[in-house]
């Protein structure tokens, strides 16, 4: 079957206005960058892909992932990993528990703990398992969020301006790490950004969006359900 993320004639409209219309294929390890100013409805597309689009919008087209039609799959069955500009670590869990939450089920307690520790070590956060996420620096949080997502073994990566909150130096570091991990796992990546630096670093296909006025917040108003 075809590996990769396949957007087949995806069109999202609100009322009479078409916000986005896209027909692209992202191969394993490839990056598609969607560019546009903020508020242009990029997040609407991500909400559609994760299955959390508000009912205010009308969408048509299909989404295929690794040869499966996931257009109507429940959000938690899509196996699409996502990173937002906020780290969105669960504040009530320790760093380790956050990672374990992402880790796919199976294995003994000790095995799972070992995998969590290994994941932390991989991003240079040895021994951080018991830390309160709120005490981490911005870069550390971003790394934890990345590893939490990767432990859930996604089949594709959605990045919603994930680097925009980081300062310039950190930004390069984290961005490189994300792309390297995606490459290593041969994951198709869809990057939404308004930053040309991100686009250049990604180096793949670029899809330019028209200026539209749909608020990004409205787009994700509906829950995954």
């Amino acid at each position: 079957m075809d590996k990769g993320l396949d957007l087949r004639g995806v069109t999202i409209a609100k009322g009479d206005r078409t916000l986005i219309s896209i027909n692209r294929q992202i191969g394993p390890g490839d990056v598609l960058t969607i560019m546009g100013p903020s508020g242009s409805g990029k997040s609407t597309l991500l909400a559609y892909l994760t299955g959390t689009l508000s009912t205010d919008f009308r969408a048509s087209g299909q989404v295929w992932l690794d040869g499966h039609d996931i257009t109507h799959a429940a959000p938690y069955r899509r196996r699409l990993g996502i990173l937002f500009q906020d780290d969105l670590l669960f504040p009530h869990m320790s760093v380790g528990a956050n990672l374990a939450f992402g880790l796919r089920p199976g294995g003994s307690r000790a095995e799972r703990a070992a995998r969590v520790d290994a994941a932390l070590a991989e991003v240079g956060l040895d021994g951080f398992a018991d830390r309160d996420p709120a005490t981490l620096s911005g870069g550390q949080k971003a790394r934890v969020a990345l590893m939490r997502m990767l432990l859930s073994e996604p089949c594709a990566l959605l990045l919603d301006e994930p680097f925009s909150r980081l300062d310039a130096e950190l930004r390069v570091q984290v961005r490189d790490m994300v792309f390297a991990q995606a490459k290593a796992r041969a994951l198709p990546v869809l990057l939404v950004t308004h930053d040309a630096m991100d686009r250049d670093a990604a180096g793949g296909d670029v899809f330019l969006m028209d200026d539209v006025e749909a608020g990004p917040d409205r787009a994700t108003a509906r829950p995954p359900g």
Partner: protein
Amino acid sequence: MNRRRLLPFVPMATLVLMLGPVLAGLWGTILPAFGQLSAAGLHGPSLDPFRMVFATPGIWQSIRLSVTTGLLSALLSLGIVILIFAGWSGTRSFRLLERLLSPFLAVPHAAAAFGLAFLIAPSGWIARLLSPWATGWGRPPDWLIVQDPWGLCMVAGLTLKEMPFLLLMTLAAVGQTDAIRSMAVAQALGYGRVSGWIKTVLPRVYPQIRLPVYVVLAYAMSVVDVAIILGPSTPAPLSVLIVRWMGDPDLALRLRAAAGALVQFGLVVMALGLWRMGEAAVGYFGSMWLYHGKRGRYDLVGRSFGLVLGGISALAILGGLVVLAVWSFAGFWGFPDLLPAELTLTNWTRHSAGIAQALTETALIASAATIISLVLALGCLEAEYRHGLRIGSRGLWLLYLPLVIPQTAFLPGLQTLMLGFGVTSGQGAVILAHVVFVLPYVFLSLGDPFRAWDAKMGVIAAALGAGPDRVLWAVRLPMLLRPVLTAVAVGIAVSVGQYLPTLLIGGGRVATLTTEAVALASGGDRRAIAVYGLMQTGAALIPFALALLVPALVWRNRRGLRHG
């Protein structure tokens, strides 16, 4: 999974459970009010029950009392709240008042009323404080303060208790307007604090606190426990008469009670109509006043009034609780001694058995009613989140309905209806009756924080492979631990304070701390009243303390939740 299929039906079930008893109760009131009561072999239709009501000696005074005490206490509590906000919002005094008054929301009405009575009676603490050195009183003056025929003491008690409620509701409403900037603009234009707030912020805030104000009005007009403790008895307000008729072993008196309940309902509807017209009039003249552009010369007067009245209210409740505490440990305590001759534990030991029993009953009913309400409220909110099933813009109105319809109007009918179906009154029935009143408050308390939760957390969790149930249990609820526990505390406090539903639906056989305390009111044994009143207050307040303490302990190592 079962739950997933059940969830969409939760909102409807909630509405039925909350409004069903209200509507059934009204129906159960209408039939006997017109002479139909099969259980007693009475068949209507007839207007005799109404004739009996209006033949009661002093009935017009009772009716007048219901209306005047209700309107007056609603006006007063709203007025004080407005003055406090207008004169002081954003200041340190305001923060202090808010901190002082908020906990009193949980103090049961009966306990607050007892405290007030113990303070201001001619033999109360204030008189003792001033006697005999300032007053020359060797014995209390023969002044009619508590239970005065005008019901002013009752108005004071109700105002004390309703003000914290309106204060918190207003606080929430003000948060949704850009009050600070409006005030800055108004003051820059040369308006004083009070007139500026009233002219620029109040018109936007009032529509949002309108329903709570109606709740206060309807409640004050039909309250029973406060009326028994502080209200006049020659004659008593209508609501007290209704309850007395309900308690009579002679079933024929149920007809009179039902007719009285309908009269009460009509009175509340009329008073709400009057209030609505008042709103329109104030709105009309207010806009003229706005146009006038006067900058408010009485600003200082208004400000001082607000602070003084707010301060007095806070001190009255606080002082009331302290005097309750002193009485509960009092040996012999004659007038005008400031403190008892000796302190003793005997009052507590003497009542320990009764208290233990009443506390168990109270805890059982409160936790059952709160758990049911919490599950339903969470179910509704989660159904809204998952399936977009909003009750709609009228939902809020429906939510307030059981609180706006006077208890004395539908609870007698509910009990009579149960009698007709041969349903025995007992714990189960009382729990369900409590749910009617607990659920709206739990819902109101939980709704905003639940909806304010960052939905992206849910998106992330789902992207990590967590189903909706796991998101709810493992992410959302733990993160919302504090608001959930606060909602539980609110529910428990509401349930603990319920007098009429417990008394009427329990058929007088379900004895909670509140029914026991109010029953003790007639006996006038201040020591027993103090012991029960304090227990009642504790039962309502301790859950709030836990709601603060537990999340702080559980999440002591989670900085991200410390202010959440």
